[in-house]
């Protein structure tokens, strides 16, 4: 189904996860360190990266940031809840989702499927304009003041969810379900961090957001600029 780069320093975990991925029909490439991961990514350009956060040498977050500068490939972090590196830090580095070790295989597979689904071209929709911002769902292109803004599939889905219902407040739980496929008790930090990343790309001043506004106690809404 997809070419997946698995970055994991522990040989047994690497082999077991690779087996499980292959069992689910994916093609798997592996790397044992951050540097090797970057090397593999540059050569093979995978569809998805499964990235262990705690890596010898270049750590997972640095890999994540480096990849993000050049590529919108989906990244799922493999973390331990007890890792000193925060989940939030991982998400802020550009990861799309995370799973916590020791994870259930079916959970990991579900996350992978959900992330890959976001890459699919949205079925509908004509071009939407909000002030300087133009969203072309069909072409999966977003431009701000005539310049293309590079969004990850997750960011694009989040923007589309908000843009489809301008002025309407969307709850974190609703966004988690619509964008991340979490139907129950998803981590709302996924939404919060992704909104931050989105604002950094599409707001004139991300510190004073006008387009994507927070509605205290509820969630977020996209507010079309007044003319």
């Amino acid at each position: 189904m997809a070419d997946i780069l698995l970055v994991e320093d522990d040989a047994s975990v690497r082999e077991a996860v690779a087996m499980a991925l292959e069992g689910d029909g994916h093609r798997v490439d592996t790397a044992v360190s951050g540097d090797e991961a970057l090397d593999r990514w540059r050569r093979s350009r995978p569809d998805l990266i499964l990235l262990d956060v705690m890596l010898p040498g270049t750590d997972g977050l640095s890999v994540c940031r480096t990849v993000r500068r050049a590529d919108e490939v989906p990244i799922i972090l493999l973390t331990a809840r007890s890792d000193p590196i925060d989940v939030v830090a991982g998400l802020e580095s550009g990861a799309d989702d995370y799973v916590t070790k020791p994870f259930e295989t079916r959970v990991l597979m579900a996350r992978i499927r959900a992330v890959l689904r976001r890459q699919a071209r949205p079925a509908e929709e004509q071009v939407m304009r909000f002030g300087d911002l133009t969203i072309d769902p069909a072409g999966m292109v977003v431009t701000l003041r005539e310049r293309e803004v590079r969004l990850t599939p997750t960011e694009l889905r989040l923007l589309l969810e908000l843009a489809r219902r301008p002025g309407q407040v969307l709850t974190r739980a609703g966004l988690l379900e619509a964008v991340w496929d979490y139907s129950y008790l998803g981590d709302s930090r996924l939404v919060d961090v992704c909104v931050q990343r989105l604002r950094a790309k599409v707001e004139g001043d991300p510190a004073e957001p006008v387009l994507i506004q927070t509605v205290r106690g509820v969630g977020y809404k996209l507010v079309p600029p007044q003319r």
Partner: protein
Amino acid sequence: MRQRLRPRLIATFALVAALTSVGVAATSYTLVRREILRRADETAARQGRAALADAAERLPPSPEPAQLADFAARVKARDGLEVVTVRPDGLSDTTSVSLSARVVPAELGQALARGRVVTVRATAAGAPYVVAAGRVSGVADFYFFSSLDDVAEDLRLLRNVLAGVGAALVVLSGVVGALAARSVLTPIRQARAAVHRLEVGLLETRLPERGRDELADLAHSFNAMAQALERTIGELRALEAGQRRFVSDVSHELRTPLTALTTAADVLEANAGGLNDPGRRAARLLVVEARRLRTLVDDLMEISRMDAGAAAMAWERMDLSALVADALRARGWSDRVDTHLEQAVTAWVDARRIDAIVGNLVGNALEHGRPPVTVIVDSMTSTGVEGVRLQVADAGPGIPPEHLAHVFDRFYKADPARSRREGGGSGLRGPNAGPGLGLAIARENARLHGGDITVSSRAGGGGAVFTVVLSGRSGPPGTVTELLPDREAPVTTDRHDVVP
């Protein structure tokens, strides 16, 4: 202590001073008075004798009244004495307006008969006198009144001075007592403050050791005790921290092989169809046990986070009933339990932790109790307590009283005689679960909400009842919600369980 020792010391000092000064004053007053009066008596006797000799010399027998009066006036002018004369024929005369023969003490008359000069102290016409009396035969009886007014005045002055000095001494002693009290009480007060500081956990508290008195001894003993306490508690804390870190480290270390193990087991399970029968059974066993191990390690990590105080709360104000309904639905339990969920019971909660509590309690009830399992959510306004309640009950055999106090203990075996495999009716965990951390974690989760879980067993074997009470306060304790402009959900910084 301060309120009672100080007045006691002051009173004691003052009392001693008062007794001393009264004693000294009374003694000295008595001595002085006796001496002064003795001298007054002597003077009066001497003057009387001189005046009598004078009278015998100067006056003729049976003198004329004028001669007597003349003599008396001279004596009065010379010696300052009042003179009363009584002639043998009974005629009397006086130099004074207030003194006369009538005020002469009667006993003097009898003494005169014996022919000597006698003195007596007497009060005449309201004033004190020493009266010297004598007879010149054939001339007259003479009574010389020497006023004691001056002496009485001196004695009064002496009394006043003694009383004044005594009172001053008493006051001074009180002040000395207060000073002494302070010198004793200040160290005692310091000691008390130090004990209080120890009490609240400031183990580095020490007392100043000044001087070589008993108080310095006390301070020294106190310091030795505090030091021993600090050392012992420090050792215990280090030990406890070490154990916590050990549990945390072990869980952490188990995580990686466990990830490989469970993932491999999942792969094995998916491919079990290709195995022969023993292989399939072995694979099944492997899968089940690997999952159990994962639960156990998850629980260990969770509880060591809680022990380390590193459990972060993601506070949100939510409808508890909706939350509980979702938790049941997500586990496919909605049809297996009877729910009584009051509408709109809102509380500040961490949704994940509430979900964990529901999962644990209802899971236990379904596994060990008998149906019907009931789940109740209500506000406790009817009981007058501000708070919300979640109750999970079953209709099983309940929990024997001797186990009730221990069901929240970690790895508590309800019946040590039975193996965990056999489980048994009183077992608190599933037949495949063994004793675990589930209830301990559930209670920690409730406590993180400022609430608690209690358990009871209904009379007559009516099943176990677990009751979670969450505080009904209007806001979460100690969150930074209000300070964050862009997130109303309190940020879970989730600093994890890395024990420093």
